[in-house]
């Protein structure tokens, strides 16, 4: 395939063309696809037909994108209630793939793809990789888990279609990951950010300097992560770390991606239509205001979702991006509305604790939060792993560090936490999404 290099040295990939559509054309395309999707959902999914009938709205009532507000919303439990195949809009013979989310409680949620859906997914993953500066000839180590989780196969299909060499190593076996990084000339890696932090740390123990390898980009997603973690990863691995966003209900990875500006994620709005609502009232909020991201699939065939509440908190950036893409950006997802915990009446997000931790020189994002209740009073313990960067042979310095962490957390969330320094590797490493909060409070 011919590679076109623009004046800036960036390569253009034909599949990325929709990223640069004039807004007017993009909005026409969105409306056309929304109308088709609503018709399809109404005709084929009993759940949506009932919901729309209840609201007194018919597919013919959608005349503009604003009419989307007349449509019913979909929540995670609707997927569970219709387990396993109740929301499918295609007969099973047209469904070529099933994935399922890791259900932490009860049944998982099942998602389906027709051949066309897999093609769209592949397309948005190619556009994602291109946005991260990857191209034909790159060697991509795909350390997302392969299986029912959408991460592995989503990234795999996209990387192959891009023309890159894919190493389908999946998650886990960190020593082997490091060997492959060293020996196979890997130029990009895909995994969760917390797993890559673990890879960096293990490589250091093995005496491998990741900074000296050809690796130049990381495509990290499937969990919220902070700017501080990005800084840590970029400095310690000498790469550019890009945030990718997606969720299996909508398609998997490839819903939104950062570009070279690393300032917000471009949402592939020709396939997924974003709204921001107030998580409390469900009312739509104007562009620029922070709230819960709601997505409508515009081209999904097997399982169209109308106004799906993601639980992810972000805002739309209405200003154009210097990279030239016309599709709008969303802010990085810092928190999910269901990650929040309440301690002594204060709402706390794990990302706030993480940000406070990383303010303290030398700490690594290996931590966990343990909530207990003693004599009716909530206690919060933050366990932090000691790293070579901040370990001193003097007791006083370690005590100072504990105090500094406690102060930083108190400053951020207003609660004094007990800080425990723990040995390296005592906090369980997740090969996928990291679990940060252990709530042991009863009653």
């Amino acid at each position, binding site marked *: 395939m011919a590679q076109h290099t623009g004046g800036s040295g960036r390569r253009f990939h034909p599949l990325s063309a929709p990223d640069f559509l004039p807004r007017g054309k993009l909005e026409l395309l969105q409306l056309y696809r929304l109308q088709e999707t609503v018709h399809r959902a109404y005709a084929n999914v009993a759940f949506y037909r009932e919901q729309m009938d209840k609201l007194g709205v018919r597919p013919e009532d959608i005349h503009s994108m604003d009419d989307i507000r007349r449509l019913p919303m979909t929540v995670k439990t609707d997927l569970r209630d219709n387990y396993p195949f109740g929301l499918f809009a295609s007969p099973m013979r047209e469904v070529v793939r099933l994935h399922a989310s890791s259900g932490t409680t009860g049944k998982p949620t099942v998602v389906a793809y027709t051949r066309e859906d897999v093609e769209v997914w592949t397309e948005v993953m190619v556009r994602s990789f291109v946005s991260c500066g990857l191209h034909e000839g790159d060697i991509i180590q795909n350390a997302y888990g392969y299986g029912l989780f959408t991460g592995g196969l989503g990234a795999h299909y996209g990387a192959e279609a891009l023309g890159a060499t894919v190493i389908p190593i999946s998650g886990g076996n960190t020593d082997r990951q490091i060997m492959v990084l060293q020996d196979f000339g890997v130029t990009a890696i895909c995994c969760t950010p917390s797993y890559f932090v673990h890879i960096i740390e293990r490589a*250091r*123990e*093995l*005496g491998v300097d990741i900074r000296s390898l050809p690796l130049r980009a990381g495509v990290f997603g499937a969990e919220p992560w902070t700017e501080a973690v990005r800084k840590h990863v970029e400095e310690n691995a000498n790469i550019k770390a890009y945030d990718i966003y997606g969720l299996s209900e909508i398609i998997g990875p490839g819903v939104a991606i950062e570009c070279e500006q690393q300032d917000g994620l471009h949402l592939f709005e020709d396939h997924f239509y974003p709204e921001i609502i107030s998580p409390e009232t469900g009312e739509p909020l104007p562009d620029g205001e922070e709230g819960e991201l709601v997505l409508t699939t515009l081209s999904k065939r097997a399982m169209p979702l109308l106004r799906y509440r993601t639980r992810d908190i972000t805002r739309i950036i209405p200003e154009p991006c210097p990279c030239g893409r016309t599709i709008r950006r969303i802010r990085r997802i810092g928190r999910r509305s269901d990650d929040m915990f309440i301690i002594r009446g204060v709402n706390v997000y794990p990302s706030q604790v993480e940000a406070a931790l990383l303010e303290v020189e030398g700490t690594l994002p290996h931590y966990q939060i343990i909530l207990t209740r003693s004599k009716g009073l909530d206690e919060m313990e933050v366990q932090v792993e*000691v*790293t*070579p960067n901040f*370990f*001193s*042979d*003097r*007791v006083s310095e*370690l*005590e100072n560090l*504990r105090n500094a962490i406690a102060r930083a957390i108190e400053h951020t969330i207003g609660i004094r936490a007990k800080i*425990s*320094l*723990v*040995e*390296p*590797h*005592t906090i369980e490493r997740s090969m996928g999404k990291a679990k940060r909060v252990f709530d042991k409070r009863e009653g």
Partner: protein
Amino acid sequence: MKLKQLSLFLENKPARLKTPCKALADAGINILTLSLADTQQFGILRLLVEDWEKGKRVLEEAGCVVNVTEVVAVEVEDRPGGLASLLDVIEQAGINIEYMYAFTFGRGDKAVMIFRFDAPDAAIEALQQSGINPVQSVTLYERSR
């Protein structure tokens, strides 16, 4: 003059000492001397081995956090007041002792103390001016054979 000491972070929990000790044992590295500082929540294990670079590598491969610190070994008269006279020299030079512990092997009427000074070079100079020579690492390690 200066010795490289390895320091390890340990949680204050049962059986935490075993991992580093076993890792060193499996690599055939002898611990010449050690000291343990402990608080309610964590401990710091400080140890001297002959090949500190190998020791550090072995411990890090075993997943330990290792810090290398420069310490000074000084012979002390093994009699009442032996340590006190040495401390006089240090005090007069205005040097702070972060911590100290005894080396496992003495010789004749001399014991060996390991010192962690806030300014090791200044401490060595002050000691030498008072006629006290810090023990060279080679001599120290030979002694333990």
